[in-house]
């Protein structure tokens, strides 16, 4: 059976054999960079297409269906158009920061890719503080958004950036506490350990009520963190036209757009790792036969399947709910989500101490 792990090992040994030593490491790094960028492009195209189709289903219409078979090439055509467009920089803008911001948000998104396990033994960097690394790097994106909003010299952008800053920083707390809640169970920050601990059942099933609460809080918080409706106050096109990226055009706009979808992918991947076992197949206790059948499905399919399921959930939110107001948004976080998640963490500690989860 061809798995991502096998391909990785084959490439690695081929490089070691033919180039060897340090050069092989350099070659691998370059290869990795290309792979990540390709993944970005493919994910961007795929997710935008998925969003448009999901919204079309929700809104009783067909969605893109002209370019390519069933509209599959629509997003590629859009990207081509965006690439050919002029990337304007407004007159009063701070040119350096204005042009830096889209790359910054992209780089932040790219960095998070490192500790994510896409399949069994298929990971860029198995760092022992993987989850901590993800939460800390993810918060860089808020700097990029503030930068974009401030340097555009546009009042709508500034308002959008300020909203975004308040929003992301607040919701990171709940997301972080939800992550910690799960760390209590696993006792390790390494992504691989977290996945390994779910071999006999995913945490959302094993972790009882606290895990479910943590999952719900995490999903709400990351929806807010990625500026998705119903928390899309930073963009809020009926209020602030397009918020922080009002002034961007062409490929610079596309980078923001792409980063939004990459971020969705990443947060859903993290949720899948923490709560749904990452690439771990669905195992039920002692049902050996069932577990064996599940093992035949490649681990990469498990991982992407779970992630896309969660992405679908977030898209469903977007096309159903109205947007919150800024004060209601902050109330929700500080008055409800944060206290609940703190209590939930205590509850989880009790569960962990009494070892109820086994």
């Amino acid at each position, binding site marked *: 059976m061809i798995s991502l792990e096998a391909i990785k090992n084959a490439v690695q040994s081929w490089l070691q054999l033919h180039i060897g030593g340090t050069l092989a490491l350099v070659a691998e790094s370059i290869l990795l960079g290309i792979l990540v960028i390709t993944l970005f492009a493919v994910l961007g195209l795929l997710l935008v297409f998925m969003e448009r189709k999901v919204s079309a289903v929700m809104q009783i219409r067909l969605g893109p269906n002209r370019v390519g078979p069933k509209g599959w090439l629509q997003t590629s055509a859009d990207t081509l158009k965006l690439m050919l467009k002029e990337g304007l920089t407004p007159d009063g803008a701070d040119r350096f920061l204005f042009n830096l911001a889209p790359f910054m948000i992209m780089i932040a998104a790219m960095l998070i890719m490192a500790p994510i396990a896409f399949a069994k033994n298929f990971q860029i960097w198995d760092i022992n503080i993987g989850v901590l690394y993800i939460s800390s790097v993810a918060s860089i994106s808020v700097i990029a958004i503030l930068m974009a909003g401030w340097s555009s010299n546009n009042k709508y952008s500034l308002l959008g950036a300020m909203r975004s800053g308040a929003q992301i920083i607040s919701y990171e707390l709940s997301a972080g506490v939800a992550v910690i809640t799960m760390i209590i169970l696993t006792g390790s920050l390494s992504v691989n350990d977290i996945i390994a601990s779910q071999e006999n059942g995913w945490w959302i099933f094993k972790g009882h009520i606290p895990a479910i609460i943590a999952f719900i809080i995490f999903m709400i918080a990351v929806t807010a963190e990625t500026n998705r409706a119903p928390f899309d106050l930073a963009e*809020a096109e009926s209020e602030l036209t397009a918020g922080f990226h009002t002034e961007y055009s062409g490929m610079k706009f596309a980078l923001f757009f792409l980063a939004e979808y990459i971020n969705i992918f990443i947060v859903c991947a993290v949720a899948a790792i923490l709560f749904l076992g990452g690439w771990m197949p669905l195992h039920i206790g002692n049902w050996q036969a069932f577990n064996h059948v599940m093992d035949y499905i490649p681990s990469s399919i498990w991982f992407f399947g779970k992630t896309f399921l969660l992405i679908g959930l977030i898209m469903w939110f977007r096309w159903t709910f109205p947007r919150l107001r*800024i004060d209601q948004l902050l109330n929700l976080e500080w008055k409800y989500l944060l206290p609940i998640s703190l209590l939930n963490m205590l509850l989880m500690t009790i569960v962990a101490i009494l070892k109820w989860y086994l």
Partner: protein
Amino acid sequence: MHEVVGTTPEGDFIINVGPQHPATHGVLHLVITLEGETIKNIEPHLGYIHRSIEKMCESLTYRQFIYVTSRMDYLSAHINNHACALCVEKGLQVEVPLRAQYIRVIMDELTRIASHELWWGAMAMDVGAFTPFFYAFRERETINEIMEETCGARLTMNYMVPGGVMADLHPQFQQKVKNFIALYKKKIDEYNELVTGNIIFQNRMKGVGYLSAEDAISYGCSGPVARASSVACDVRKRYPYDVYGLVQFEEVLETGGDAFARYWVRIQEMQQSVRIIEQLIDNIPEGEFQAKTKAVLKLPKGEFYQRVETARGELGVYIVSEGGTTPYRIKFRSPGFSNLSALNQMAKGGKIGDLVATMGTLDLVIPDIDR
């Protein structure tokens, strides 16, 4: 007037909403003074789509000027035409055949439903929900098809003429309207499920954009905006025209005065419109669809005022005649203009999100404000 200034002399932030802005639904320009995100003052600038219809009408004959009025409040084109036709008929003292009166009222109510449909979708979009827009347009499309078959146009109908309506009904009109009504009754429940009951939506709407009954009267608000502040001002009830006196319907009144009350008034109004159509559609009498009038209409010297209830409120047509074939002076009292003047009162002290929700429930149609 339109100079770009960053801040007021007091140091408050100034932001220009419009003339190109998704929430203004047209070319309306609001200069907003902000303190943080709290609105301190709103100053509307109008006129981006001012065509001076009143001046144009002065050189058009009494048959011609009605067609221009379709372009005022384009969402209630039928009702605008109706108001003008009624005003001319008042001057000519023509008795309109009963069949024409029935057709007119049914068309008015269908227009009202279509207009409220569009409002519902657009308002949901203002508060950030995209999907309702498509649901609303699905039903609106059915009405537009009925309109198209009957009068040949989907938006600017020009169906009402002095003395009656321009052409008789389409043979399948009654059946199609009945089919639509049967379907539509279920759809209103769907709307309530999708939007009205949503907790986020209720939080966004309740207590937002409050307008007291005294202010609503003083600002000359009309239609659902005033009725949500418990001001009974439905022209159909108070000064019935055509067959509105014969049908049973309720004047929807709410006491909240906030955005949610305005929303709820309109949803209930759609149900009342359905009720009116149901009473009339089976009883359209046989007979002429147009009274005999002269080819060239001449109104006697004098002044004529006719008001009707459009989807947005009270539309008044004031004709000053010198006895010629064209009006000497014509004035349209548009509901949107007065409703807009209360916007500052309503949105002051709220957030930008509140302003958008308030404007959504005011149901502004900019050509109606600018004329």
